[in-house]
């Protein structure tokens, strides 16, 4: 690869997305291209990983090393890639079902481990690929094929879950606000550690209009967090914003500087190899066998 050739949106564009016309995810993809254009990572070092769902098709639409894995397990897979290949820029994508329901436990653990990767959740409050079942973020009363008389289970609050879980960068944005989305993506990508961006991304087929309240063009309010007033390192303040009535606020809820798992594992490696004098595998194994004589 030539050092001087710039990575362009054209280089990053792969198959045309199979999403429905009008889907919020198109804007997320466009914002992602633009941020990558700006950051200029080596093309071969970009790795996109997703599970199952409409938004989890993302890796097919980014021309980079990519993985379309199984439902709910994008984060553990991405954890393996990040920890074993610290040279890569690792991105995980998914939706509310993939990330907060079937993969909900993995989210907590990737967060607490502070694995160095960026995770973008395209939250549409509904199962789209399987055609309108209740999702973990569907509001109470939402009529779906699995709740014909209206959803009765309380939805989870993703922002609270992320802050509680220990994610070191937690932000929220709206797929119609491309400029804001790009700013948040860039900060998330440059953040060392586990960074998550929750994007309200409308499903125009199964839950049209649900995010209009956060879209000024549809008469809503896009209320951006003022970081002069909100201390992003204050966990309690993050909870308070997360508790606000829908549509709530947008921007960075929480950001913390905490050693990544990648760094901590590397430190253990460095310390161990210093003790062994950097011995090769054959010598290390001979030593180990000697202990069993």
């Amino acid at each position, binding site marked *: 690869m030539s050092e001087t050739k710039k990575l362009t949106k054209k280089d990053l564009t*792969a198959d045309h997305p199979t999403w429905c016309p009008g889907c919020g995810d198109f804007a997320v993809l466009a914002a992602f291209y633009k941020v990558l254009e700006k950051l200029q990572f080596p093309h*071969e070092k970009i790795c996109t990983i997703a599970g199952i769902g409409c938004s989890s098709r993302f890796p097919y639409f980014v021309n980079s090393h990519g993985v379309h894995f*199984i439902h*709910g397990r994008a984060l*553990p897979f991405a*954890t*393996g890639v990040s920890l074993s290949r610290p040279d890569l820029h690792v991105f995980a994508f998914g939706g509310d079902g993939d990330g907060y329901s079937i993969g909900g436990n993995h989210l907590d653990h990737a967060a607490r481990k502070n694995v160095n990767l960026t995770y973008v959740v395209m939250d549409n409050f509904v199962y789209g690929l399987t055609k309108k079942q209740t999702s973990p973020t569907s509001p109470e009363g939402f009529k779906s094929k699995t709740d014909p008389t209206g959803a009765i289970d309380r939805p989870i609050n993703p922002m609270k879950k992320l802050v509680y879980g220990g994610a070191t960068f937690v932000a929220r944005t709206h797929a119609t606000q491309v400029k804001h989305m790009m700013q948040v993506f860039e900060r998330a990508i440059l953040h060392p550690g586990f960074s998550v961006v929750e994007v309200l991304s409308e499903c125009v087929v199964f839950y049209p209009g649900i995010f209009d309240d956060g879209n000024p063009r549809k008469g809503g309010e896009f209320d951006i967090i003022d970081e002069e007033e909100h201390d992003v390192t204050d966990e309690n303040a993050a909870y308070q914003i997360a508790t606000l009535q829908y549509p709530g606020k947008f921007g960075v809820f929480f950001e913390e500087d905490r050693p990544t798992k990648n760094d901590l594992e590397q430190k253990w490696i460095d310390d161990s190899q210093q003790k062994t004098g950097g011995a090769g*595998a054959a010598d290390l194994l001979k030593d180990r066998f000697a202990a069993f*004589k």
Partner: protein
Amino acid sequence: MSNTAAPASSDHSLIELQDAVIRFAGNSQDGIQTIGAFLAKLAGRSEREVMTYMTIPSTISGGPSIFQVHLGSGEVLSPGDESDFLVAFYQHSYENHISSLKKGGVCIYDSDHVDEPDLENKDIVHVGIPITSTTVEAIGGSARDRGKNIFVLGLVAQLFQLKKEKLVSLVERQFGRKGEGVLRNAMVAFDAGFAYPIGDVLNMAFNLKSGEATGEEKVTMDGNTAMTLGLLAGGVRFGAGYPITPWSTIMEQLRSELPKYGGVFVQAEDELAAVSIALGCAYSGHTSVTGSSGPGLSLKMEALSYATMAELPLIVINVQRGGPSTGLPTSVEQSDLMQAIYGSHGDCPRIVIAPKDVEDCFYVAVEACELAKEYSCPVIVLTDQALATRIEAFTEPDLESLVEEPELDQEIRAEDFKPYPLDGLTRHAPPGAPMEGGKYPVVTGLEHDEWGHPSGNPTMHARMNARRREKIKSLGDKLPAPEIFGDEEGDVLVVGWGSTWGPIREAVIRARENGKAYSALHLRHMNPLPNSLAEQFKKFSHVIVVEMNDEGLYGSGQLATLLRARYCDPRIQSTCKTDGLTYRVQDILDRIDAITG
């Protein structure tokens, strides 16, 4: 004889032994495994074959536990059906295990805890020793009875005239790490046992005949340790797991060893994450491992199906235990064979191999690494609880010639790169590898074409299914015919796999000594099977598969079912059991007699 603390007086007889089976029966917190481990290590150092057998209860602490050591100067193939010596720490130990003693065997019991037995029983030599009070007296202070295992070790050293210096150095190495006080107590307890006037109560001493001097110090370890070292030798540098008995000790060792090799083993939040993290490492271009026991393997099945579809290399260690469900977590069984081969959804061919003894755990792990890389698919290693925990001595592998430093493939890929060629084996481009044509691959669980693009074309699905199947079959074509132990033709061919190798072999030796035309065939490759079997089976009147699983609805164990399906040969019969214990040699022979009538 200079080692003997209590010299045998003239009326004491010295008995020469070719081999000895010693069973220690107590509770799990008594540290009887420690006695067994010391004796096994000592035997390894003194150029003797050794095999041990251990059962531990599934409770964290407390509950009955035994450790059986079979020391021999020749080849030791099984833990021994009956014991020559029994050391009973408690009344329940005595009652439950006295029947394991051979006629004429010696029972040493702790007279502080065991009621005086029926001394009229002349079949057994009873030796009562106040093990607990003597230990407490020797150590003094607050140690209570901790240390009685080391007292017994001293006693055994005296009884068998074992090399004291070597044992003492082993005890020092083990306890030296735990602090001066602990080491001092251990040495006091050992000396007390070694000097105990056993000659007052037993008019026999024993000498284990040394085998031919090989001048070779063997390594002595359990199967899980050998497996771990095999994985490291095979190039594993990354992986992930979740704790479950009896797999945990492999992941514990990988976790602490891998940093030295520049690698990471991740303790995952669950089995699904473990297999997914390990697959992420494999995708990244590393030799990667996950593992578990039966329940955990079930949880990994969806991701393993992905690994077959996406053709990612992954080593999966499954330490079988008693099932179904939580079952018998600390007992042995071979009931995961079908799960290993067929457990995932869809048509999901993959490689399954099984080690036969502790030493083989090392070599099977190395082979699993090679096969995963060559065939770019999951390779499941079926070991079991018996192999995981038992200790054997074996020759140190030739590490210099075996071990290679793995290298990350970051070669640039040509414009016509196809990860899934219809006419060849899959070779992925790991992330970081530049693509000359500028088009980057997506690895997917959707059916795909040669380039990895999703394809719903039914013809393509059939062709790709065939491709994944033929790849595994091609390994079967290369497998050599399994060696037959005994004659190549005869009356009974005993077929086995996994840890039953030793007892089956010993059973065949015993039968042949009695003039029977028995042979044994051991399978290492369970999927694919070698192609030679039909020809090999033909030359015997009976083909009897010995398995530690249930006979199923149709009267055949899991391997026998597979063999009958493949060869449609009604002579293939099986004998099965699920009592959670390894096969006794005589039991195998009795079962074969029952079948052959």
